[in-house]
């Protein structure tokens, strides 16, 4: 008479315990998803912003861009060049 009662009580307590644990775990992880999603969104935002800035940087440092800017600043194409083949002193000790 005692043993079946004990077994029954054990089964009921196990079932109740599992229900409580499940509820507790679900409750614990549910807000993490929102936080993680927010972090993920921020990460994607900065990734995109980095890409856009990188694109801008490459466009501005391209030789095509530098060449046209140089012309605007008055740089001209070299027509002649000369080379100093003999070393000339810059400063002499007297």
């Amino acid at each position, binding site marked *: *008479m005692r043993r*079946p009662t004990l*077994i*029954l009580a054990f*089964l009921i307590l196990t079932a109740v315990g599992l229900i409580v644990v499940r509820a507790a775990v679900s409750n614990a*992880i*549910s807000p*993490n*998803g*929102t936080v*993680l*999603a927010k*972090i*993920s969104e921020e990460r994607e935002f900065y990734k*995109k912003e980095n*890409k*856009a800035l990188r*694109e801008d940087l*490459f*466009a501005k*440092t*391209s*030789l*095509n861009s530098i*060449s046209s800017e140089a012309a605007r600043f008055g740089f001209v194409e070299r027509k002649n*060049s000369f*080379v100093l*083949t003999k070393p000339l002193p810059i400063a002499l000790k007297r």
Partner: protein
Amino acid sequence: MTWRYKFAFITFVLAFLVVAFRLFYWQVVRASYLSEIGRNQYGQEIKVFPERGEILTSDLFPIATNKVSYLLFANPKEVTNKEDVALRVAKILDTEYASVSVSLSLDKFWVPIKPGLNEEKKEAIENLKIPGLGFEENYERFYPEASLAASLLGFVGKDDEGKDKGYFGLEGYYNRLLSGKEGSAIQIHDALGKPVIARLKEEGGALEGSDLILSIDRSIQFLVEKKLSDAVEKYGAQGGMVGVIDPKTGKIIALSSFPTFDPKKYYEYSQDLYKNAFISDLYEPGSTFKPLVMSAALNERKVTPATRCPYCGGPISVGGYDLHTWNDKYYPNTTMTEVIQHSDNTGMIFVAQTLGLEKMLTYLDRFGIGRLTGIDLQGEVSPDIKPENSWYAADLATAGFGQGISVTPVELLTVFSAIANKGIMMKPQVVSQVRDNEGRTVNIEPEIMGKPISEASAKVMTEMLVNAVNKGEASYARLKDYRIAGKTGTASIPIQGKYDPTKTIASFVGFAPADDPKFVMLVIFNKPSAAIYGAETAAPVFFSIARDILSYYKITPTQ
């Protein structure tokens, strides 16, 4: 009473066993089936598209990279007031109202409206808050240097499945490396659509494309392209090409052909422009071929620089044909050095006949004529060399001065780089390193193709070419403070079995400094109209570019 307890107990035990059995069945035996259903209900499979690898010049500047763009799509079944929506969207997109309207009137759940939108346009459309419109994010190719090295790069189009695929040039040749591998991931949402965790797992994870680091020097490529396009216009040529190679490693420093195309809008250009003429066009090289034949004869000790031609006092009759010099000037008893200096066709007939057909074919093979160089670009062709029993006496004679035989520009450049590099011929290559998505690099090592001539023969040939530059018909344009080896070429073009005297391929090939060459360069103009000779068109451009390259490399004058 006992039997009631027993009965109840047995009933509970049986019920428990049934539940346990069913639990085992659904959670172990049918586990994967349940997971699938769960995933379909709460999970969403996301395709992870890899970013295509970049193509960078030797200074690690990307000439082909990626930028984020958006495809605007619509669910026509959710869009109300289609006319008004089409009007507002078309205005922002700066596109035809009719095309948007037609897309929205389709009886589908998903229709593309316009690809390639930037962040600004995306935000403008999002601010309209129109239900039924959405965006797909993807990458599109971006070229910071615009059409620089376009024929070298190729372009990125679509394959039959609508996926990105490279065509021509480097994008085509290295498509698999650049493409990377697609992956997928599962995202779990709760009943309100919020993610439970950010991403469950990546199944068969995506692999970003590898980057290519080229041997191309961006500054030299830029100046070569500028000078080439100016010269094509100045000389009224149909087109032009320049190739610059480091003879010691085979690395291509610059490669340009004109006319060219914009790889971003490749579809607006004729398909003829997609191929890289430097590796895909066959042409008769004319006098620029003479150093190959001469160095073969020198290597075989059939001639020396002082050998005299016994029958070069006038036109030579071979196989029923009278073969003349290019300017109908003849130098009786001319030496081999003078033959190169004067670009004397009759002298080269003597050299070819002295060399003999068998040796001529041997050296054509040794120099790689008739075989692919193996350069890492898509679209390379090579000419067919006739078998020995198909050659006539006239064929041997004309091959001596570069007519009646076809080469690609890259083949000729490789031949000259062998002469510049002590007789050692290096395989031309454009990519010097491959970098994977984790930053690890693999070097593409230089490869020796062969040693067609000895170092001594190469040295002798170099001196003959220096003499040709100093005293030949292009001497007026030479750089007086450097020792440069080179040869002009003016090849007639065969049209319907005859050579047109007014249409030529004008070229100049050379290397500098002659004693320790840093580069070999080939300049070609196709049918220049202002002047037809290589000495008047290609040679000045060669020396102009050479001066800039020598200055760029800080190579001081040698004389």
